[in-house]
């Protein structure tokens, strides 16, 4: 079983596990309504200093609204937002140590790239030489040195996005809000910039909150991820935790590929439940600390790469489903086998391609066995 946890540094950064730690940002039962539409509903969340916090969720779930409340453009309808010891309810945007990179960039069209980037520093009455130095630093960070004297309308979409990023970073704010900061960049530049962002954040000890639609990006940069749905938070945890131990079908499905099998609780023995999932099939075993009622509906989530596949019936495995190869997806480094089980459910099993395509033994319409350990799946009650 490959784990993402093992890649974390030895000295673990996890202030959220330490009850003595004061969070930098606290959402306390925050509700935000626009007219009678509820954009954020009774949301409670702590974000700690030096975190790289990612908000993940479908379009319209309230990510930008949360950012705008932090920046001070919207005020909660109910509840409080605390920044350190101060209640943000009363602070106007220009008095908050918070900078935001706008989803729409919001570059000043009558100013050059340089002036845009230096704008925040100028408001602080930073000396001219210092402004120039910082602007240059930011320009080189986003690789826009040749464009310093251009106006925003002379830039491409990706270039504009980088100017917006540089402008929000220039003041090195205590809390930086990035609303889809890298969406318009090509893959290579995006990866570079992600890396740079992580560097800056770590070196300067800043706190970042990022919105992204790219789950790979969220997994790469974030210390923790909040999975959101319709103005509510479904799960807040480290990327590895959400991936390995999602708390619901929604967050399992949102981050990465997953097989979800519905069934009824059969028996619970010790820390293992068995789930009856189809007529005439052996119930599936799942490790869990929960003790669910027999007969209730529940789900098993298991990642495709944790499934193994073979043509011969395996011996001594916790779970095994027989089926027929329905489709094979080939993406170079891995192959995904779509296997149709007896009840019509499709299971996806991923196998890394160690052999050449021609040497593959399993092909369409083969009768195969898909199997996995009981610890590989996750038991879900919702």
């Amino acid at each position: 079983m490959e784990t993402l946890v093992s890649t974390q540094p030895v000295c673990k950064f996890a202030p959220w596990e330490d009850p003595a730690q004061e969070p930098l940002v606290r959402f306390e039962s925050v509700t935000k309504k626009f007219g009678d539409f509820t954009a954020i509903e009774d949301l409670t969340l702590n974000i700690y200093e030096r975190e790289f916090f990612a908000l993940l969720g479908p379009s319209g779930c309230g990510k930008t609204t949360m950012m705008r409340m932090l920046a001070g453009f919207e005020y909660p309808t109910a509840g409080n937002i605390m920044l350190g010891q101060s209640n943000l309810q009363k602070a106007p945007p220009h008095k908050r140590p918070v900078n935001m990179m706008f989803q729409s960039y919001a570059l000043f069209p009558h100013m050059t790239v340089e002036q845009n980037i230096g704008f925040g520093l100028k408001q602080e009455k930073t000396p001219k030489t210092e402004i120039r130095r910082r602007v240059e630093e930011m320009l080189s960070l986003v690789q826009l040195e040749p464009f310093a004297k251009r106006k925003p309308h002379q830039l491409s979409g990706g270039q504009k996005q980088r100017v917006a990023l540089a402008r929000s970073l220039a003041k090195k704010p205590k809390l930086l809000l990035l609303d889809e900061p890298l969406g318009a960049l090509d893959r290579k530049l995006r990866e570079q910039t992600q890396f740079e962002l992580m560097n800056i954040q770590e070196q300067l000890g800043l706190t970042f909150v990022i919105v992204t639609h790219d789950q790979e990006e969220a997994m790469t940069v974030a210390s923790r991820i909040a999975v959101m749905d319709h103005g509510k938070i479904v799960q807040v945890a480290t990327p590895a935790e959400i991936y390995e131990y999602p708390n619901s079908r929604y967050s399992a499905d949102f981050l990465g590929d997953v097989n979800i099998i519905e069934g009824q609780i059969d028996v619970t023995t010790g820390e293992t439940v068995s789930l009856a999932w189809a007529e005439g099939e052996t119930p599936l075993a799942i490790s869990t600390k929960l003790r669910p009622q027999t007969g209730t509906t529940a789900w098993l989530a298991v990642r495709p790469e944790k499934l193994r596949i073979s043509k011969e019936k395996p011996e001594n495995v916790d779970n095994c489903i027989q089926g027929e190869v329905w489709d094979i997806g080939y993406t170079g480094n891995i192959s995904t086998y779509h296997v149709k089980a007896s009840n019509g459910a499709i299971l996806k099993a991923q196998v890394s391609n160690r052999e050449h395509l021609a040497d593959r033994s399993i092909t369409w319409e083969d009768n195969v066995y898909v199997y996995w350990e009981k610890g590989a799946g996750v038991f879900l009650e919702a």
Partner: protein
Amino acid sequence: MAVADITSPSEEIQETSGLSSGWGRRLLIAIPYIWLLIFFLAPFVIVLKISLSDVILARPPYFPNFDISEGWQGLLAMLQAFDLENYVWLTEDTLYLNSYLSSLRIASISTLLTLVIGYPIAYAMAKAPKEWRATLLMLVILPFWTSFLIRVYAWIGILKKEGFLNYFLLWTGVIDEPLMILNTDTAIYIGIVYSYLPFMVLPLYAVLEKLDISLLEAATDLGCSPLKAFWVITLPLSLPGVWAGCFLVFIPAVGEFVIPDILGGSSTIMIGKTLWVEFFSNRDWPVASAVAILLLLMLILPIILFQKQQEKQAEASQ
């Protein structure tokens, strides 16, 4: 208005550039030019011709006249009779120079006043809730439904010694003596500002309403107070509207005749009034035409500036 006629061809060209048919396209482009030719260039040439002629007691009151029956010879004879006498005359009598300068002064001050009054109005309109804006816009345009002349006359009733304004101010006790406003420069400023305010408000409103609110949010987010954000973001970005409004007020205000005639005193000279006196009281059409030609030449500079500004704006918004 002359300004609108002059700017229209370039707009027409841009609008029709999508047409593929060559002839239809040329025709469409030609229409504004033909319009200009008939309604601007032809009258201009006639006035120019009169300005180069001599005044005589006759009908028409100038000489030479071109008689088509004399053919080519007649045309040559007429050209030879032309001279710049009237223009020389304009430089000799200080009345004309003073009229021009006074007109420029009054037009500049009125433009500035209109801007100072119009900007907050346009700003408030642009910031008003969306559902109100159409109504507010309507209210700005509403005065156009009544004749301009009647509206200016109405101001006599307001400004005169026994007028509404004095009546009101005396009643509230702000003043003890009625103010003498009618027949002064102040009355002219009031008249011009009142009459031309919509021309200032409309272009300003157009730019202010389009202003992206997230720019102001970004500015305050970066530590700019709302007041300062107005100075560094809103104001610079509304400059195209400021320019358009100023030109739309300044250009007609320079040649204004009705307002100084009705509301102004006899001591106020403006070029429009001087022109009127030359044409109708002195019946000196050639000098009056020369005055008109010089006025036009004077206004060409601001008109060109206005057009440059419009072009620049069109470029920037692409």
